[in-house]
């Protein structure tokens, strides 16, 4: 038994170390930490816009913190935002370009950012507004030139003054008053979920994981003699496993239901704007079935109480982290992100998130069903082995 425990602990330690090492040493992680990637959708051929973009890219200190990424259409930019390739994107509409040309201030940029980037996006937009205002500096040369030409042409001083005043005010209207240069629209952390939805689902799934871990010890862990005695009385391994799993699942489902009820009530009283819909509840309940099967499988497979609790907790923690329960998984390397989606915790999150966000959740549902059946089938196989030992 001892080599098995050591092997299991070593395996978990190696997995966690490898994950940590790959995160902090990945190019993706390091580049994500250093630069703010801003997507631009639409036409930037306008002279003033081109000047602004050029200044942002080259002439301002922001060149060290900002990457501008051009996209052909908004769908492409939105996909990049959801994949965490960019932090936000701006849509430059024809109306906005026309407004610049007309020197009016009635059309704003459309600005999209994820929830996690919304705060920093506002700061960035202030910076961009400041840079845009700097366009006024070269424009002063234009005003001086206009004044000089008008004086040479013999215009009255009052007329020169008025023309310079009008063009100056036009610039001011256009640029200086753009304190709120954009409307920021929150798209959520990822996959179309709001921050509240994301963390409510992730924390609830993590709670369900821990709950299954606690409850399972009441239904498993009997000695082999009991299993043998039951089998000799004609109760097959399948009946034994289902006889333990179904009560475990019932306890878990009731517990989750009670806590969900409290969450709905608490949200109502605290005026939290989270729609805990029937679809969300159904999704969480279906995930609970898979978690119950996973907890049952782990407790059936592992030997020794301390070993069971320790290994299960570490696996749950690693799985939850890799699947983005505690923090958006965009900080992880691409390979780990993909793995995080494929493991049971990730399948559950993709499924419940998909149900809530109205996305396609077919594959995560199939994945959850496959995992559930596999966990139960392997548990039956292990029980058979225990009985025949």
């Amino acid at each position, binding site marked *: 038994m001892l080599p098995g425990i050591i092997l299991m602990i070593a395996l978990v330690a190696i997995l966690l170390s490898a994950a940590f090492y790959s995160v902090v040493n990945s190019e993706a992680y390091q580049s994500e930490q250093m630069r703010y990637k801003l997507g631009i959708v639409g036409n930037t051929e306008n002279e003033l816009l081109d000047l602004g973009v050029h200044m942002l890219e080259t002439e301002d200190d922001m060149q060290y913190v900002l990457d501008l990424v051009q996209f052909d259409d908004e769908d492409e930019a939105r996909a990049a935002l959801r994949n965490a390739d960019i932090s936000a994107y701006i849509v430059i509409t024809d109306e906005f370009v026309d407004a610049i040309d007309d020197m009016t201030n009635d059309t704003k940029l459309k600005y999209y950012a994820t929830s996690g980037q919304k705060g920093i996006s506002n700061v960035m937009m202030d910076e961009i507004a400041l840079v845009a205002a700097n366009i006024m500096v070269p424009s002063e040369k234009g005003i001086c030139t206009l004044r000089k030409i008008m004086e040479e042409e013999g215009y009255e001083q009052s007329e020169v003054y008025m023309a310079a005043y009008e063009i100056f005010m036009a610039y001011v209207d256009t640029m200086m008053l753009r304190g709120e240069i954009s409307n920021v629209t929150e798209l959520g952390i990822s996959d179309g979920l709001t921050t509240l939805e994301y963390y409510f689902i992730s924390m609830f799934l993590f709670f369900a994981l821990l709950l299954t871990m606690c409850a399972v010890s009441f239904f498993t862990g*009997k*000695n*082999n*003699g*009991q299993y*043998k*005695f*039951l*089998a*000799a*009385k*004609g109760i097959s391994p399948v009946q034994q496993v289902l006889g333990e799993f179904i009560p475990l699942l019932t306890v878990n489902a009731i517990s989750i239901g009670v806590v969900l009820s409290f969450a709905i009530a608490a949200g109502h009283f605290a005026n939290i704007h989270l729609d805990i819909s029937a679809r969300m509840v159904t999704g969480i309940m279906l995930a609970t079935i898979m978690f119950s099967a996973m907890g049952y499988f782990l407790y059936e497979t592992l030997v020794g109480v301390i070993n069971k609790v320790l290994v299960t907790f570490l696996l749950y923690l690693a799985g939850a982290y890799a699947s983005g329960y505690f923090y958006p998984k965009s900080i992880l390397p691409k390979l780990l992100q993909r793995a995080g989606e494929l493991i049971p915790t990730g399948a559950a999150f993709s499924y419940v998130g998909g149900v809530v966000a109205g996305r396609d959740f077919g594959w995560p549902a199939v994945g959850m069903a496959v995992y559930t059946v596999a966990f139960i089938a392997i548990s039956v196989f292990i029980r058979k082995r225990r*009985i*025949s030992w």
Partner: protein
Amino acid sequence: MIEIKNIHKSYGKQQVLRGVDFVVEPGQIVGILGANGSGKSTLLTILAGLQKCDAGFFNIDGKDMLKNTKLKNQLVAYVPQEMPLITELTAWDNLRMWYSSDRLKKELSSGVLKLLGVDQFIKTPVHQMSGGMKKRLCLGCAMNTNPKLMLLDEPTASLDLECKEKIYDYFERYKDQGGSMIIATHEVQEIELCDKCYIIKDGVLVDYKYDGDIPHLIGRL
């Protein structure tokens, strides 16, 4: 009559049982002796239907127990070495898994459970019971179908003398009623209780007559 014929069992390349043959008459106790890992428990688990043998027959009154599982569950009781009890529950609750309420009351007042003395600790939780009480409760659970054959894997291991005597006393009564037993054991007292003994060695069963010579027995194992 209980017939066990030509039982073979291998784990991979290791042959554990190589043609085990013996007969148990009604009211007879047969002891299976052997060193640890010799195949005693394997033989009992095959007869209890917990695992399949590679070849062989196990008949009771001419009926094949290896194929007729339902009948086997009724005629054969198996008591493993580890206690098959739910420790959080009382003796009554454990027995209720196997007996209807009415039958349990009847057996406690004048039946097999009375003989085993389970009625004296019927309300005691299992975790508060002595080893002997637990073993008697196990036997009580196993006896719910009035079996013709009991398979016992080291039934009195690690019990004190008083507990052993109570259990042996029950074995004698069961035997007197025509019940048969196959006991896998290391205990000298159990060997003395047996009508026939076999030593299992290298997968083969050999007749053995215990004459009180323990060194000779050890040498044979």
